[in-house]
């Protein structure tokens, strides 16, 4: 009878030895970078594109001769939209594949899951998606927008250009919308909007029946004041939401919707004619009129062999992150984590909207905020572009974080320095 158990033991040993062996194949003449995006599961819909962008950027860089005279090699893994698996794969990339840096994650949950791994193993993660802020890690660079680089300028635009007085904050019930809406509510109230003129509404992930909520929005909007919807509705739920809006006849001229998670990629699954005029706020749109953007789009189409593939904001964030890393590595002359962490601060690289983005000491970057209106062809028409804004990791509108700043330069090297108490570590006291 013990034979079966032995068989089991042998199989275990086999699994473990294969995992151990693979590390031995690392070649010395390449620099490896990790790509940690879900290729299956619910997030594959958004993240697969970013994997393709990373592969393209690596290929382009290798054409230019690589980095430090070595070729780059992308190690792609699939964390399958499973958050603990993100941590496992991050650990594998860093300690087994010995990658110099990792580009990846989409949801905050996945980033939170890998954060301890990056801090423990002292590696670098470039996170390319807009997020709720309230985090600063020595080992993570946030090249997506913080709330002040997306949400607040969008609200300002609506209040100024459209004269909006009444606000619906609609979001999917998770941390990004909750935090963003808390910040927005505090911000709006600081601008004199009454609490009764703000309606907050949360829906579950993948919500598909929007009839009641859209009619609630309509009801809320019929109070005689100009009303707008600020949508932090997550990816998949947007398509049925916009379809319902269109069908119930809510036009952008009556109640405009400004979204923070709807880009070209999401619109590609929609007939956008009924949506013309609804807005989105990002740091990049495919329709940006800049030579560098035109070139990027051309490369992207050539790389994917599909000239219908759209580009979007997280792709730009990945582009900036990758180029900043390359520049920092070349400045440091090594891929050593500590050296790169030192050299990357202050690095400026071109962004795709025609300007430059600089990596700030708080590991966020500067970028302009663009407000775009949806067009019938699924693209955005840019109606406003601000000067570059520095990402603010600790919101000024939340009571517990308004005194915090982050500065990873020596000698401070602190992610949560309290300016009131003058100490590092949150409250400080």
């Amino acid at each position, binding site marked *: *009878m*013990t034979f*079966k*158990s*032995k*068989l*089991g*033991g042998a*199989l*275990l040993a086999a*699994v*473990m030895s*294969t*995992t*151990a062996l693979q590390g031995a194949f690392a070649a010395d003449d390449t620099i490896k970078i990790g790509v940690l995006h879900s*290729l*299956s599961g619910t997030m594959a819909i958004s993240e697969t594109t970013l994997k393709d962008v990373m592969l393209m950027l690596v290929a382009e860089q290798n054409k230019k001769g690589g980095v430090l005279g070595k070729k780059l090699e992308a190690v*792609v*893994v*699939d*964390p*399958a939209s*499973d*958050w*603990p*698996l993100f*941590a*496992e*794969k991050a*650990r*594998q990339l860093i*300690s*087994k594949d010995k990658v110099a840096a990792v580009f990846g994650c989409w*949801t*905050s*949950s996945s980033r*939170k*899951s890998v*954060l*301890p791994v990056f801090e*423990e193993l002292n590696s670098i993660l470039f996170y390319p998606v807009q997020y709720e802020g*309230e985090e*600063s890690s020595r080992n993570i660079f946030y090249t997506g927008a913080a709330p002040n680089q997306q949400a607040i300028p969008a609200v300002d635009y609506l209040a100024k250009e459209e004269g909006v007085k009444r606000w619906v904050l609609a979001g999917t*019930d*998770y*941390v990004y919308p*909750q*935090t963003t809406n*808390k910040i927005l509510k505090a911000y709006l109230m600081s601008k004199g909007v009454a609490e009764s003129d703000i309606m907050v509404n949360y829906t*579950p992930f993948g919500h598909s029946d929007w009839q009641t909520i859209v009619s609630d929005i309509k009801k809320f909007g019929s109070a005689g004041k100009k009303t707008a919807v600020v949508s932090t509705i997550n990816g998949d739920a947007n398509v049925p939401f916009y379809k319902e809006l269109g069908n119930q006849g809510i036009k952008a001229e009556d109640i405009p919707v400004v979204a923070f998670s709807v880009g070209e990629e999401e619109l590609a699954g929609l007939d956008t004619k009924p949506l013309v005029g609804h807005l989105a706020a990002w740091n990049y749109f495919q329709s940006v009129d800049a030579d560098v953007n035109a070139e990027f789009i051309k490369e992207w189409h050539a790389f994917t062999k599909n000239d219908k593939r759209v580009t979007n904001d997280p792709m730009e964030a990945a582009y900036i992150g990758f180029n900043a890393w390359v520049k920092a590595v070349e400045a440091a002359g090594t891929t050593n984590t500590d050296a790169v962490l030192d050299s990357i601060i202050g690095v400026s690289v071109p962004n795709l909207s025609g300007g430059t983005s600089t990596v700030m000491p708080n590991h966020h970057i500067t970028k302009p905020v663009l407000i775009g209106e949806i067009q019938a062809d699924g693209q955005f028409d840019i109606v406003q572009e601000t000067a570059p804004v520095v990402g603010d990791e600790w919101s000024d509108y*939340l009571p*517990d*974080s308004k005194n*915090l700043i982050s500065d990873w330069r020596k000698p401070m090297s602190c*992610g*949560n320095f*309290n300016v009131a108490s003058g100490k590092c*570590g*949150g*409250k400080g006291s």
Partner: protein
Amino acid sequence: MISGFVFRALEGRIVAAVGILLAIGILVPALNLLTPADSAIHIPTYAMSLFGKYLCYALLALALDLVWGYCGILSLGHGAFFALGGYAMGMYLMRQIGSRGVYGNPILPDFMVFLNWKELPWFWHGFDWFVFAMVMVLVVPGLLAFVFGWFAFRSRVNGVYLSIITQAMTYALLLAFFRNDMGFGGNNGLTDFKDILGFSVQADGTRAVLFFMSALMLSLCLILASAIVRSKFGKVLVGVRDAESRVRFLGFRVENIKLFTFVVSAMMAGIAGALFVPQVGIINPGEFAPANSIEVVVWTAVGGRGTLIGPIIGAILVNGGKSFFTGAFPEIWLFALGALFICVTLFLPRGIVGTIQHGFRSRKAYKAAAEAEKGRDAQPSVAQAAE
């Protein structure tokens, strides 16, 4: 009496399995800690924590086998008990962070601070105390299983209906834990743990101990499960599985038998979750996803249900395969996984261990048995689904 209970459990196969598990539990951490990193026999921390995770999954599969393989209750909600155990552990670990959180709030976890919570919700109290948290790891899943089973088994909900409502249970919990207002960190869950009982969760030593604990708990639960199924109670249990009405007519309180097994199984799942969380460093509502619970069923089926050892092997094999494929062939791993499920159900209906067991019998006898089984079930009424 108790020694007899335990002694019965230690049938040769189980002894060997426990021996191997404990050997792994000691050897792997030892190789990780004591050998230099460039040595051929060194086991990297990465592999150790990965394998520790498999051991937790194995414990979960074992728990499912107890109710499915021996009691005929196919729970599609065992992931919920696992996750609840994990959350109980996660809450303890959150409270251990203390003022090292990013806002330096000594009481409130970070996610409560930035969502403007003013005080700790009542259900978080006590979790700063390790013993209390460990009791909760058992009590919370156990209590849920008790309440759920109390109603379900008394109303004689069984078969597919039971499976579907266990799925409804874990789905409802998934939605509930996703809500930020619940006070469990919403979809981000609980993360950024610092230490456990004063030891850093990142340290290799702590990981080694956690790994050993996983192997140890798996061994203990295996012995317990084996003792249960080999006791008189276990015989009745199998009776309930095979002919529930007959057992009831013989005077046994079937609902109590089921309830007891269900609660024990849920507690084991809770332990698995509690060991899982510090090793992977995060617990979030994704663990409640119905798909996860179905995967547990698959591990058990692959290894062989009703064999106790089979599910352990199944869990380790499938997850090992998953880790390998998602790294080596990310594009095709779902094909491989899907094909595995189909092949196992078609060609290895008894699972790996079950097939090997039956391999000793003559092929003819096996075929005859299969025919008989087919004939008996020729009326595919839904009520038989529990089998």
